[in-house]
């Protein structure tokens, strides 16, 4: 196993009693990458983080974190180089924010503790709350303090397990801004989340997990792999003979009526009510090359084109396609 990657996981499996939490998972995370780890509840995300964070041992398989292979002899060295932020902030409510951080700074044996604590608090904008008891902070502020604690030891790899869970949108936005800032520091971030929009925005690559690894790649790669590329067309009125318009185009491999939002509507007649606007979904190989020909054909057919553009599938579509494939259709 090479030691160049920040995280290397090979055939990792974890069994609790008769329940398999993680099954034969393999992936690699490059140094400095923001890696999203997605999946439904009980998918094995937190178990994977705990294994990589040396909290629990795998049943089988191997992994290396920060270039160090997992094992009882290397646990302390790995812990020195990583940090884990859990869903719960995990702060001592009877201690102040600064006391919490100083405690952890001592556990890491950091020199210049006061300066480190101040730097970490500055990074999350909490210097003015340093002397407040953690029990008096809002959940959003606690999560920021928790992130400050994770920054103390300047980790090579940061595991963020649902860092925005339970936060209001403003607090979640603040925390995500801080996570985004970690990329600039060169920290490898391993982010588990339910919020697909934030994963799409923050992560270089994502893995979708449901006990076993379902897929991995950049959000764009996943979209391309799972969904055929298509163009959504909206016209002011339904076309009289759409098959004649679309079937004659060599770049169009197929078409179907669509909802006004661009989604397929296989049970619809001719793509809209009589007299109203209509939408069509056209399957193509190369949307950029096909769009001019489609526009010309529509104009030639006398259609008033309201809009034409490539259909964008969100990471949520990818996620649901993969998760429902197991949960709903199997």
């Amino acid at each position, binding site marked *: 196993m090479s030691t160049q*990657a920040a995280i290397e*996981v090979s055939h990792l*499996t974890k*069994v*609790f*009693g008769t329940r*398999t939490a993680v*099954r*034969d998972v393999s992936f*690699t*995370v*490059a140094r400095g*990458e923001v890696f999203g780890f997605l999946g439904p509840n009980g998918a094995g995300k937190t*178990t994977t983080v*705990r294994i990589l964070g040396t*909290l*629990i*041992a*795998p*049943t*089988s*398989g191997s992994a290396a974190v920060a270039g160090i292979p997992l094992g009882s002899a290397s646990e*302390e060295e790995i*812990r*020195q180089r990583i*940090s*884990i*932020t*859990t869903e719960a*902030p*995990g*702060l*001592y*409510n*009877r*201690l102040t924010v600064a*006391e919490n951080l100083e*405690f*952890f700074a*001592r*556990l*890491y*044996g950091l020199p210049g503790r006061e300066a480190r604590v101040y730097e970490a608090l500055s990074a999350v904008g909490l210097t003015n709350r340093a002397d407040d008891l953690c029990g008096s902070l809002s959940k959003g502020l606690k999560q920021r303090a*928790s992130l400050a*604690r994770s920054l103390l030891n300047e980790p090579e790899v940061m595991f963020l397990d649902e860092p925005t869970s339970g936060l209001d949108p403003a607090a979640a936005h603040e925390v995500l801004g801080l996570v985004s800032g970690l990329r600039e520091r060169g920290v490898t971030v391993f982010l588990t989340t339910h919020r697909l929009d934030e994963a799409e925005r923050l992560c270089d*690559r994502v893995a979708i997990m*449901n*006990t*076993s*690894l*379902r*897929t*991995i*790649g950049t959000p764009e*790669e996943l979209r391309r*792999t799972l969904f055929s590329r298509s163009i959504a067309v909206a016209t002011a009125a339904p076309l009289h003979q759409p098959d004649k318009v679309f079937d004659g185009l060599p770049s169009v491999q197929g078409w179907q009526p669509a909802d006004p939002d661009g989604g397929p509507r296989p049970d619809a007649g001719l793509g809209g009510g009589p007299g109203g606007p209509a939408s069509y979904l056209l399957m193509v190989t190369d949307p950029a090359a096909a769009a001019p020909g489609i526009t010309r054909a529509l104009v030639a057919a006398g259609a008033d084109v309201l809009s034409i553009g490539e259909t964008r599938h969100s990471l949520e579509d990818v996620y649901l396609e*993969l998760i429902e*494939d*197991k949960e709903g259709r*199997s």
Partner: protein
Amino acid sequence: MINTTRTGAVIRKELAEFRRNRLIVVTATLLPVVFLISPTASILAIHASASSALLSKRVDYSLFLPLLVPLFVPATMSAYSVVGEKEQGTLEPLLTTPITRVELLLGKAVAIFLPAITVSYLTFGVFLAIVALFADAPVATAMWHAPQLPAEVLFIPLLAAWAIWIGLAISSKVSETRVAQQLSVLGSLPPLALISLLSFQVITPSFGLAAAFAGGLLVIDCAACFFVARLFDRERLVTGTRPRRSAAAAVAAPGTVRRLPPVSGTS
């Protein structure tokens, strides 16, 4: 090899938390007062003219009750120690730091031991001072010359250590503070049985017997440190299940998951 910086950090943190935990402060204050009232009243109520049998009985009783302080105060504190971390959600972040389980447990034990023996000796000292100042002279003399007095003074730290390790062991196993406290108080009682036999002179107290008992308790306390450290398993504490390492157990149920083509691990 124990890292004293990390152990010291745990001691400082624990002491700071204890000072601000009302339940701990009230317990550590009220219990000694409760265990001081009865023996003090018992000794002060007896007159110089009392029979030697009655005097001896009262002295035995009065010297026994304060010994409950070094058992019950640390039992309450240590019961909170690990389960309190679980309840606050601080255990997982703590276990992801480089601290070893022996360093963590030792730090917690020392942080409980220091206030527990301070309170215990203070209770004993206040009791003896009250006897010296306010009891009739023959009663005070009988108290000072009681054969079990030096042994009981010696037992205080040993009993406290026993209660601490029992409390930490229980606290590592259960998930609720109240349950941990109740079980810890129960768990701290066994050595009390033998001490009560000595205190009430069912077994004639002698220096040799007291020393043997103290030595035995010391050995048990040291062994308990390692025993509790073994109980303190990160995986069980975090997941609530015992670790299981078997490749055979990892065989997946076939046909439950569709493998998708783009799964590729390398970046």
